[in-house]
């Protein structure tokens, strides 16, 4: 029982971060049909900027805020400098653009920061909580609570505000969105900025547990992509479910089989989804009538 609960919490914690990355993928994919492989770099920026600002003497909450702003600005730049000028390019071209952007961001991070691994202090101490005999880090609760808050906030934004509906409208039909007077370029920029900010928050929350370095983005992007595929790409609920399921699969594979295979799980999931379940768990056929 103790082992099970231990693995469950470990899985949910990493899964929550994958869910945030997957949500970033989903938001950008919905609004623009771009699969943004630079998504993992936003997570990296979140962690790294916070670490360096904090070590330079900035209080932790402010350092975290700064990191979110830097990531959102990077997302905005990514859209206006690399994606928007390539308007009309094929999906594959756009994917290559985002991979290029991800290599560039990683390279710059390596120069501006360094190549070392860095840690942040846990937000509310390192004393583990005892739950059914398992030791749960308080930081895990921060990750779960923070991710939950973001998911809820994003849902409220998309479902309850006119601007959020404008994002969904742009996703559903860009031509019509322009014809009702939505500045679609602004909406897409917003989608990139919000995705980046969400990724950055994930990076900040998880750094006290997993450490961070300039290079953590690549693997996170792949895991997040696997999670988004598993949940059904373009579906925000699917992204969250996919992220949590992937995190749990990894944790239990590591605990019950061998931690050697932990990272392999994500790739196995991508393959299985592609072969057996191309729509993803919650993927649905488009509602429409001609």
């Amino acid at each position, binding site marked *: 029982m103790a082992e099970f609960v231990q693995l469950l919490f470990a899985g949910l914690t990493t899964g929550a971060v994958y869910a945030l990355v997957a949500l970033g993928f989903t938001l950008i994919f919905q609004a623009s049909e771009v699969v943004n492989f630079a998504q993992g770099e936003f997570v990296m920026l979140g962690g790294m900027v916070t670490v360096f600002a904090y070590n330079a003497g900035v209080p932790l909450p402010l350092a975290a805020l700064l990191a979110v702003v830097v990531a959102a600005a990077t997302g905005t730049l990514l859209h206006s400098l690399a994606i928007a000028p390539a308007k009309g390019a094929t999906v594959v071209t756009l994917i290559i653009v985002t991979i290029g952007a991800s290599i560039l961001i990683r390279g710059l991070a390596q120069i501006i920061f360094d190549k070392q691994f860095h840690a942040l202090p846990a937000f509310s101490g390192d004393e583990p909580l005892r739950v059914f005999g398992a030791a749960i880090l308080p930081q895990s609760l921060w990750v779960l609570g923070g991710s939950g808050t973001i998911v809820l906030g994003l849902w409220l934004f998309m479902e309850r505000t006119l601007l959020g509906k404008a994002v969904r409208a742009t996703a*559903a*039909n860009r031509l019509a*969105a322009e*014809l*009702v*007077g939505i*500045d679609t370029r602004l909406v897409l920029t917003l989608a990139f900025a919000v995705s980046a900010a969400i990724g950055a928050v994930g990076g900040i929350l998880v750094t006290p547990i997993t450490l961070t370095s300039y290079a953590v983005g690549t693997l996170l992007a792949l895991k997040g992509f696997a999670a988004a595929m598993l949940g059904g790409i373009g579906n925000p609920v699917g992204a969250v479910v996919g992220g949590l399921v992937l995190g749990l699969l990894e944790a239990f594979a590591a605990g019950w089989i061998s931690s050697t295979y932990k990272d392999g799980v994500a790739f196995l999931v991508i393959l299985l989804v592609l072969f057996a379940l191309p729509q993803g768990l919650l993927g649905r056929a488009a*509602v429409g009538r*001609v």
Partner: protein
Amino acid sequence: MPPEPLLQVRNLRCGYGRIEAVKGVDLEVAAGEIVALVGGNGAGKTTLLRAISGVLPVGSGTIRFAGEPIERRRPDERVALGIVQVPEGRQLFGPLSVLDNLRLGAFRRGRARTRVNLERVFALFPQLAERQDTPAGTLSGGQQQMCAIGRALMAEPALLLLDEPSMGLAPFLVEQILETVVRLRAEGVTVLLVEQNAVAALSLADRGYVLETGRIAYAGTGRDLLGDPVVQEAYLGV
């Protein structure tokens, strides 16, 4: 001097990539008019409307609205000026509810105006009020067209561009939609109507243009065009 037309298009050229679909069109719509634009498939009608709305860049030529050159304005700025289009094939936001589609139509107008306009649209199309919570993509063809027109009205158009509003609809629905057009004009909306149903369009229009492979082939009052033997033979299937 006659008053300046609400919409004035001069020597407009535009198209897709290297294909020029509109090859030097002159067209005017005076305030309060219904102007019909007819012509065969591929004549450039939809391209022309897209250029007027700004969703397609203008190659050369000018578009003036209420005296102001607008050909370099963004589409959302043109909506704010009062140029609103009901695009070909409805183009609703399928997964969003009817109500959300209508609210988004008023994206450039504020909350108070949205409420007033919503009542107006529901009065015009009571069926939309009944189905306001259903996803727009699941409406029937006629209801979708009502939703598309309703969404455009939410933006308080000064000039309404209608692209094939009768396409794919049963005859009694076509009649209902066209009656709506006449009613809107009575309420002060100027209309530029693109129709494949040329007889119906020209019958209710003050003036009409016949577009042929990107050029204006004939222009005149609706009645003149309906009576013109060449136009009759080529476009009216008489």
